C-alpha cells in the first residue's frame, strides 16, 4: 500500500503543472529518502519581492517544474519562522539550497534567476552531485 501511494505521488508529480511543495522540511526529507530524490529547499522571507518573482515566474515554467518534480523533493521555508537546519543559512533571500537525501549540501544559489539561467543552476547542481562535490 505504501509503495502504491509513493508510485501514485510520483506519477502525479511528473505530470503536475506546478512544483509539488511539501508541507515542511521534515516531510521533504522523508519523501526524498522514500523516493530516492534530492532535496530542493527554497528559503523565503516576509516581503521578499524577488522570492515572489522567482516563485511566480521561473518556478512556474513547465520545463523547470518538470525537472524539479522529477529530481527533487521540494519545500519552501520561511526564514526566522520555519524549522530547518541552521547550516542552511540565508543572509538574504531568495536563497535556494540543493541537498542530497542525507541532507548534505550539494549546491546553493542566491537571488532571482530567469528561466534561461535557472536551467544552468539546475545543470550545475547535477554536475556537482555527480562529481560528488560537497559545498
Amino acid at each position, binding site marked *: 500500500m505504501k509503495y502504491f501511494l509513493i508510485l501514485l505521488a510520483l506519477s502525479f508529480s511528473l505530470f503536475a503543472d506546478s512544483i509539488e511543495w511539501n508541507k515542511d522540511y521534515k516531510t521533504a526529507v522523508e519523501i526524498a529518502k522514500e523516493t530516492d530524490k534530492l532535496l530542493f529547499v527554497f528559503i523565503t522571507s516576509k516581503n521578499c519581492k524577488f522570492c515572489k518573482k522567482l516563485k511566480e515566474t521561473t518556478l512556474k515554467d513547465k520545463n523547470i517544474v518538470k525537472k524539479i518534480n522529477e529530481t527533487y523533493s521540494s519545500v519552501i521555508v520561511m526564514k526566522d519562522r520555519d524549522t530547518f537546519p541552521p547550516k542552511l543559512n540565508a543572509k*538574504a533571500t531568495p536563497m535556494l539550497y540543493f541537498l542530497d537525501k542525507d541532507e548534505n549540501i550539494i549546491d546553493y544559489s*542566491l537571488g*532571482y534567476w530567469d528561466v*534561461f539561467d535557472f*536551467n544552468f543552476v539546475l545543470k550545475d547542481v547535477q554536475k556537482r552531485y555527480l562529481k560528488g562535490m560537497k559545498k
Partner: protein
Amino acid sequence: MKNIFLSITILLAAQNLYAYSSKGMKVYKKMCLSCHGSPYRGAKMHTIDEWEEIYEASKTPIKHLHKSDAEALKILDADYFTKKKQSYLKDFLIGNAKDAGSVPGCDGNYCGS
C-alpha cells in the same frame, strides 16, 4: 588644488575599475554565454576559492576545464581569446563568484531581509 587632484585621481581610478569589470563581462558574453548562461550566472558556477584553484591548476585554465569538450575548445581557440582577454575574464569570474557578494536581480543588492 590638492583636493581637485585627489578627486580627479579617484574618478579616473573608478572609471578604470568599471572598465575592467565590463571588459571581462564582454569576453564572457562572447565566449561563454551560450553554454553557461548570463554573465553573473556563469561567474556564480564557483566560489572565489574554487575559481582560484581552477586558475592555479593550469596555465590555460579555461581550456583545461573544457579539455573533453571539442565544441568548446573550438570556441576557446579563437584568436579573439588573447591572454589579455583571458585575464579580463578571470577578474570578472572571481569578482562575481558565488560568494563574492553580488546578488542578481535585487535592487541595490538587497534581496528581502
